[in-house]
Every structure is written in C-alpha cells, then in structure tokens.
C-alpha cells in the first residue's frame, strides 16, 4: 500500500508499505527519521514515543495502516525546543537510547503542565525506561527545562 501521512508538518508518502508493519518501522526505515528508537517492541520502554494527532503514543504498537492520514510529530520535529537543550545541559544522556522518547514525553508534559512537581514528573515519565538508570539527571533536565 501507499501510506500518506503528515510527519513533522510535511506531507509524506511511503510506497510498498505492508499495512501491518509498525509506524516506527515506517518512520525509521522508509522515511529516514531514525530519532525514534526501536527497543522493547512491546510499548513498555517508551523509546519510540511520537505524537500522533497531538497525543504521545508508542509508535511500535501503531500499525502503519492506522497511521494513514494522521499527523505525526517525531523527536526530529521538536529538535529546536528547550527540552533537548536541557537534557544536554544537565548531562541527562548516557547511552542515549531512551533520550528521544524522553524528549517527546517531557515535551508533552510541559505542554500540559508548565510547573510539574517531582512526583508528577516521575509519573509522567513512568512509560520511559532508562536502562542506564540515569533517572536523577533526567529529573534534573526536566526541572531545568521547566525553569527555561
């Protein structure tokens, strides 16, 4: 099938897509957007978090066919924002694999709540696992992004 969707504000098409492959696969392998990471493939780790129609979802669980006509924003689409800079400044990146998903999740959190408390930050990021366990610096990065 030919898949049509909007990605980071741009109308995109991908040909020869199997409707059952994941949106994550389409983004990474067909549209050249490798920011979203493929880790658990179960919706557990959040490394593949993208916005679909304005809502953060796990792209690994979305079938390509379900993304037809949808508006997708990946971590590449929010690269100019303060969240990524805050992660850099706070040293909140170790191996970096969870970082893109976290950047999207934090971007969403701050869009909903400009002054989250620590428990609110922790709960909002519960779906993003850092296998390096670098959570303290990640929390620092969120607090820094809030200040900025």
């Amino acid at each position, binding site marked *: 099938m030919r898949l049509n969707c909007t990605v980071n504000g741009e109308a995109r098409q991908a040909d020869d897509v*199997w*409707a*059952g492959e994941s949106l994550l696969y389409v983004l990474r392998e067909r549209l050249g957007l490798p920011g979203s990471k493929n880790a658990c*493939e*179960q*919706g557990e780790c*959040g490394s593949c*978090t993208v916005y679909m129609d304005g*809502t*953060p*979802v*796990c792209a690994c*669980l*979305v*079938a390509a*066919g*379900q993304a*037809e006509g949808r508006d997708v924003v990946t971590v590449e689409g929010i690269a100019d924002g303060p969240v990524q800079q805050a992660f850099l400044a706070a040293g909140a990146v170790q191996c970096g694999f969870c970082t893109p998903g976290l950047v999207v*999740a934090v971007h*969403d959190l701050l869009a909903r709540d400009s002054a989250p408390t620590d428990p609110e930050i*922790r*709960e*909002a990021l*519960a*779906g993003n696992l850092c296998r390096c366990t670098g959570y303290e610096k990640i929390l620092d990065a969120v607090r820094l992004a809030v200040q900025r």
Partner: protein
Amino acid sequence: MKTFNYLRATDVDVALQRIAVEPGARFLGGGTNLVDLMREGIEAPETLIDITRLPLDGIEELPDGGLRIGALVRNSDLAAHPVVRGRYPFLSQAILLGATGQIRNMATVGGNLLQRTRCLYFYDEASACNKREPGAGCAAREGFNRGNAVLGTSDACVATHPSDMAVALAAIDAVVEVRSSRGTRHIPLTEFHLLPGTTPHLESQLESDELITAVELPPLPVAAHSYYRKVRDRASYAFALVSVAAALDFGADGRIADVRLALGGVATKPWRARTAEQLLLGAAASEDSFATAAAAELAAAVPLPGNAFKIDLACRTVVAVLRRLTTERSGS
C-alpha cells in the same frame, strides 16, 4: 510475527459482516495488548480489522444521569472526563493507576475489558498453560505465583484478570453493549468475564463475531463518594497485587446506607465483593465491621505458596479504603 491481512473498517455493520464470515480475524483497537501478544506468538490472527476509525469514540450523558462510553474511547480521555471525575471518581483513579501515559493514550475501553492476563506462564511459550493451550497444565501452580489469583481460581487456572478499570466498572454495575450481525446484546460487566473452571481459554461472553460497542454506567449517587487504591510492588507502572474499588454512603442514622466494593489483583475476573457488601449494608462504620466484611469475602480464597499474603493484604486494603471513605464523609 506472522504476517496478517490488514483491513480498515469505516462502518460498524461492514466490520461485523466481515468478521462473521472470517472467524480467524480479530478487531484491532489501540493494539497495546494484541500487538504485543502477536509479537510473542501467543496470538496469530490471519486478519486484523482496524476499528479505530469507527464512530464509537464518544462519551454521552444519559437522561437518567448515567453515562454511555463508546468502546473506542481512549483510557486517557475517559479518566479525564469531567463527569467521570465528578460522579465516578474511582473509575478515573483506577484508569490513571494503570499502565503509562503513552499506553493510556492508545488503549481503548473495549480493549481494556478484553486484555489478557499477564500471568508469567501464559506469556512464556515454553511453560505449560491451560489458557494458552487447553489441557497442557498450569505451570503457575508449582511456579512463581506471587502475582496469581486467590479468588475464582480452578485446578486449571490461577491467572488474574489484569484490568484496573474493570474493577471500578464491576463496582458500578456497568453494562457492556455488544453487537454482531445477529443483533445487539447487553451484558452486565460482572457477568461479562467468565471464571476459568475447566475452560480457562474462554475468558468472556463475547462471541467471535461480536464487537463491544459501548459501556454504559447507570446513575449511581454513592459512586460520587468512592476511592480506588492499588497496592503493587513499585509505585508506578505495575500490575496490582491487590486493588480495591469502593463507594460508601451513610443514612441519617449514621449507618451504611449504600456500599459498592470490588477487588482487583486477587481474582480471575474483576471481583465484585457481594458477600462483604451484604454484611456492610446497614452496619455501623467501624474497623470491626469493615474487617469482618473483608474477612468474609476472602473466606473463599484458595492460596498458593507464593500468593497467600494477598489474603491478609486484601483484607487490610479493604479496611483502609473504607476507613478513608468514612473519614471523608464525616469530615464533609
């Protein structure tokens, strides 16, 4: 993952006609459980019928004060709905204590009811599981069964139903609307899920050609005074060891005039605690009456070595939740 055919449904009747002639097909909603099960090789449908574009995503207030929730309403949207938060707060709390933000954004109400157990041995293809392969045996009985059920179990199966949302819905006496090309049925939530008995692979009353189209909540004034507590091994993103959904109200005489109680994490289906409710109704609100009712409900529990702790934990959690609701009411 086995290759499958993908069909996008844009009309409920067409989707129902299709599944009626293709029993190997499954409906795809949020995909948060089904896709995972397909990747694990536990489910292998030949066709997925994507229903996410069907017009079943509305929440409608009913003239009698109840609420009609479309089957495709996302868990996040249901939890955030002002009427749910105001009239059925424990439903909102239960949903928000389940999964993660990303998953709640995807998961649907209908799919939540149909999610499969997270019993470790159901997920491990190398282990015996009567639910996955009828007649194979149950590895959980002799295995790591800390998370398994103590109520509603059978020799064949001790798997818990994992939903938080459905526990609150059981307390509310929600009704599940299902449709097929043969017609529409309404099934009380408390009867929707089946006890495992000798057929643990049969999990609900839903037939293979039926689609959940809505969940209806009856008007329930006592639910405005409700609370959901979930006890688990970590503070977030874990399934319940024990959960309690309770609603409580008092008469002019100070005695319990209305009560709803349901348990999660301890049973093979969302567990409406009717034995406890009957003991509580008309009783004075006291630690003793709460503890007596909880113990009566758990009297039927059949523990395994790894999960016997759940009996006492469930009793204490019931008492704690009822105490909290009593304190809230006497303070208001």
